[in-house]
């Protein structure tokens, strides 16, 4: 018995086999069908064939069957009608924008529906500082609000949101360190409420500095101030 796998390199193809079959790479024989060399510099995918004895094959079959049936019986695999409508809305929106891609539900938690856009146009779909992604998300939320009252849609692509959050927290620490060293307060760029909250929370535990928001409207700025520079509180 054998099964075939593909990867950019031989190692990747073997890793794919190990992940799917759930057995150690030492436990099976690998035959390389296509080494991926398509010329001097061109490289195609590497194809391998994994040989298994009958006993192993049965185990694998059982494993695959249970892996396929288990998620279908849990809540997460059942797509509600309104969820499908939101997914369809975003998918069509991307097509009409001229940047087609696929939209998948990545998570559901605490009334949030996470959508992941997979597209070769992801850089423009995200936009500068996530501007386009935020606009798509806002519209998707209005549409979702019409379908289902208590759902918040989070639209992401290429893990932009988590990368951006990490970047903001790093910026917060770096700036706070500077403020603590030279004592001069620093004003960060305008940010939306969610981003500002991240900064406030990150620096809440940070000794020696305080934060406060300045400005009006949706996009306020966070100022980081050294503790003893604050005017003394009057009792």
């Amino acid at each position, binding site marked *: 018995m054998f099964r075939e796998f593909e990867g950019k390199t031989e190692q990747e193809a073997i890793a794919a086999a190990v992940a799917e079959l759930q057995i150690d790479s030492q436990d099976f024989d690998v035959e390389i069908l296509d080494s991926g060399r398509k010329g001097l510099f061109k490289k195609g995918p590497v194809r391998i064939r994994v040989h298994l004895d009958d006993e192993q094959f049965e185990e694998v079959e059982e494993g695959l069957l249970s892996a396929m049936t288990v998620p279908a019986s849990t809540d997460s695999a059942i797509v509600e009608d309104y969820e499908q409508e939101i997914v369809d809305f975003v998918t069509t929106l991307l097509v*009409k924008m001229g940047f087609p891609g696929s939209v998948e539900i990545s998570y559901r938690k605490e009334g949030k529906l996470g959508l992941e856009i997979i597209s070769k146009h992801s850089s423009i779909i995200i936009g500068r500082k996530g501007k386009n992604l935020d606009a798509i998300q806002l519209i998707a939320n*209005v549409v979702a609000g019409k379908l289902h009252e208590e759902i918040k849609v989070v639209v992401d692509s290429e893990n932009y949101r988590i990368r951006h959050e990490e970047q903001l927290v790093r910026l917060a620490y770096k700036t706070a360190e500077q403020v603590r060293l030279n004592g001069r307060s620093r004003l960060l760029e305008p940010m939306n409420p969610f981003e500002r909250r991240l900064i406030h929370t990150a620096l809440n535990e940070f000794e020696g500095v305080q934060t406060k928001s300045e400005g009006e409207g949706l996009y306020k700025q966070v100022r980081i101030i050294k503790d003893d520079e604050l005017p003394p509180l009057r009792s």
Partner: protein
Amino acid sequence: MEKDLVEYIVKSLVDKPDEVSVNVIEGEQSTILELKVASDDVGKVIGKQGRIANAIRVILSASATKGGKRVVLEILD
């Protein structure tokens, strides 16, 4: 096509999609899209502090980067 894009977004936001119309005015360097909706729906398209109108404009300009032309959205009332 930008007209199609605006119509699609706006129709999914309003209560009276049949009353949505977009008039395209092609200029040399920019395209002006005049959007008309039912008077009860104007607020839904603009949103608080113009948030929704801005989001539509952001999506429009992202989409318009391919054509190289500036796209302006005007909401008529």
